[in-house]
């Protein structure tokens, strides 16, 4: 009873703490950049975007509202959406594979999405799909990769870390090879694609958010609805069935949904690795493995983490900018090694 209640309390505390940290980070991120703003200026300029009459126009620089509207806010929101998407997709994949090393980037799901997205960018006949071509094809690629890895890595319901990682590397490399081939063959602007591949939020826009956010949020809601079932799946599909869970449908739904949210992120931000690995792991260390706690907390922490990483990415070498994927890989690579060495009962 006590430990259970303690976990409940810790969950609520963590959620509140994360929410506060998120607001603070959003504010900070909006302040920082080539032209700095004070917190008050950020708030007033933002409010003026919605209700120009409510704030004194002299209390903030005249360019601030446009800067926030066109550059900083879309970028911040895209970071939040992508962070939520990648970390919850990671948590879900870890549950489905019953292995804490599963992650969209490491499993090649992100690479699959990238191939889909690249096809959407460079194949002219698809232009009629407009901005929707990108996520649709990215989703197709991600789904293909996820099911390939599942088929390859899972024998008799067991997914060993070795087979999982090997399958992920194999599928991921294959998709990356396809990606390179596509770029060379079509002589597409290589620099653009390479930068996109390294993961970046530079091109974030409201239009992209309007496409990605509903996908990611819908995926997140479906994951939450599956959380109790996902808990039972951790004991194996046979046991889950004995307790009344349609394990096949659950696994299928969750692989689809994890691919969907991954695609929603990758299509517009490129390949950002390790978020889905680190964030759920940290959350489990604090809250335990119950997905009803892990998914919401990982969503918040993932959003926070990616926003921090992106803010760092665009300020650390100011005025130059590093792709945010490099930052996450810098932190995530060593973390992954640490997990490989120590993982036991997460």
């Amino acid at each position, binding site marked *: *009873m006590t430990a259970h209640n303690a976990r*409940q309390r810790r969950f609520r505390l963590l959620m509140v703490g994360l929410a506060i940290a998120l607001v603070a980070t959003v504010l900070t991120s909006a302040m920082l950049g080539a032209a700095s703003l004070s917190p008050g200026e950020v708030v007033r300029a933002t409010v003026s975007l919605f209700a120009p009459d409510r704030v004194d126009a002299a209390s903030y620089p005249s360019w601030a509202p446009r800067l926030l509207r066109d550059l900083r806010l879309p970028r911040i929101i895209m970071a939040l959406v992508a962070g939520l998407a990648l970390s919850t997709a990671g948590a879900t994949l870890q549950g489905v594979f019953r292995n*804490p090393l599963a992650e969209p980037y490491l499993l090649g799901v992100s690479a699959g999405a990238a191939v889909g997205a690249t096809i959407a960018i460079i194949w002219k006949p698809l232009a009629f799909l407009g901005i929707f071509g990108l996520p649709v094809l990215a989703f197709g690629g991600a789904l293909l990769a996820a099911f390939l890895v599942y088929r390859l890595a899972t024998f008799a319901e067991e997914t060993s870390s070795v087979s999982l990682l090997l399958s992920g590397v194999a599928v991921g490399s294959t998709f990356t090879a396809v990606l390179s081939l596509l770029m060379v063959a079509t002589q597409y602007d290589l620099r653009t694609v390479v930068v996109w591949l390294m993961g970046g939020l530079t091109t974030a826009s409201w239009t992209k958010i309007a496409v990605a956010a509903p996908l990611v949020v819908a995926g997140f809601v479906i994951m939450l609805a599956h959380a109790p079932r996902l808990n039972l799946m951790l004991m*194996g599909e046979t046991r889950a069935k004995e*307790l*009344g869970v349609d394990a096949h449908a659950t696994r299928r739904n969750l692989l689809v949904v994890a691919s969907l949210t991954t695609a929603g992120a990758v299509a517009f931000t490129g390949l950002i690795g390790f978020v889905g690995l680190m964030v759920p792991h940290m959350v*489990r260390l604090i809250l*335990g493995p119950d997905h009803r706690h892990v998914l919401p907390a990982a969503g918040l922490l993932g959003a926070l983490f990616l926003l921090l990483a992106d803010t760092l990415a665009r300020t650390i070498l100011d005025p130059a900018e590093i792709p945010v994927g490099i930052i996450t890989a810098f932190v995530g690579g060593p973390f992954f090694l640490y997990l490989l060495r120590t993982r*036991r*009962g997460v």
Partner: protein
Amino acid sequence: MGRALDTRALSDAAPTTPDAAPPALEACGLHVRRDGRTLLGGIDLVVPTGAFLGVLGPNGSGKTTLLRSLTGALALSEGEVFIEGRPLANSDLSYVAQRIGIVPQTFTLDFKFTVREVVALGRYPHRRSWSGWDSGADETVDAALEALSITDLADRPVTEISGGERQRVLIAQTLAQDTPILMLDEPLNNLDLNHQLQVMQVLARLHAEGRTILVVVHDINMAAQYCADLVLLSNGRVAAEGTPERILTPEVILDVFSTRVAVHRQGGRPYVTPLGLSPRRAADGALEFRLHLITGGGAGADLARDLVHLGFTPSLGVVSVFDTDFEVARSLDLSVVSAPPFQPLTRGDVQEHEALAREADCVVVAPQVYGAGNLANLEVALAALDAGIAVVVVRQPPIESRDLTEGRATALERTLLERGAVAVPNAAGAVDHVCALAKDAAAPRPAPGPLGTPKEQTALGPQPEQDEDQGA
């Protein structure tokens, strides 16, 4: 066995017995075949509501397969299963999970749930469509933890407890499922004796509450002590079913487990003791062949063991309490005429011995040392011979070296041989000869009427080694 199938063939509809509510579980003609191998070869089973049924059988006999096919976890090649009269095939998983709780042999869980959280997962079939975040506070979960004495472990991560504790967590999880039917696949694995008893007592209590219990048990005695009924599986078929008293006989167990056992009673229930090593395959006819071994002073101990391992159940006489032969007879659970040590046989001992010898199809005389006290043993052999029973005499070491009766024993042995007793040089020879007799007794039965008793056939049967041995 065929009865359930027949009624099913007549009425395709719900399998209600005419008089009462449908049984908790009913299996009709279950066949499971995989890769050309038959795992279940036509099982019909009716488990009435409130039954406490133990499923026994050697490894690979299909116990787990049966359990898994009864819950729909395994696709059937043929046949049908009904849960409380409803066809399993048409039932959805969550309905089945509300009716049947299953304890599998193992489970893996590498994520750091606490014991309480794992047990609470068993509540899943009963949860409302969206139970919110809080599922841990539940009396059923507390009761399940309590029943298996793991309340102390409730807050420990399930990844950090011992195998036996995990086993009890798994059982508690299924108890939390709170189903009218429970199926357990070797729930005593990994458990200490005290926890084995605890689990069986929990099952007995659930049975008393009116739940239906189906349990696969390795330990025959555990099953015999607690289960009201047993089913013995062998090669994917039902070899025997009924109360422990009825089906736990040495014959059935030898048949199913290829192991010779003795069956005692303990607290009104059968108690099965394996007899020494597992036998070489029982010699032909050995089970039915009645054998009496005349011995004493340990002379026949090895012979008795050899015969038992071949499937014979010799009686022994007359044996002094505390001598080697007596101990062997006791450990092998053989019937024995015994007498106090260091005293001449009384009239009563001899009569009892003679009665036992006359029951036999064959009497074997072990190379014992004869003194005044046990000379009557040879007289019993002679009486048996005269009654038409085959008598085999082991001659090494020579009778002269064992005769402390001034030639009377030597003379008696000579008389035995003259009247047709078979001489064999040693214990091995005796075993060979007895096996031959048993085989002959078992094989030719042209008219297996009640009149053709084995005894007569043995007496008339050929005795191929006789000439050769006597010439030696």
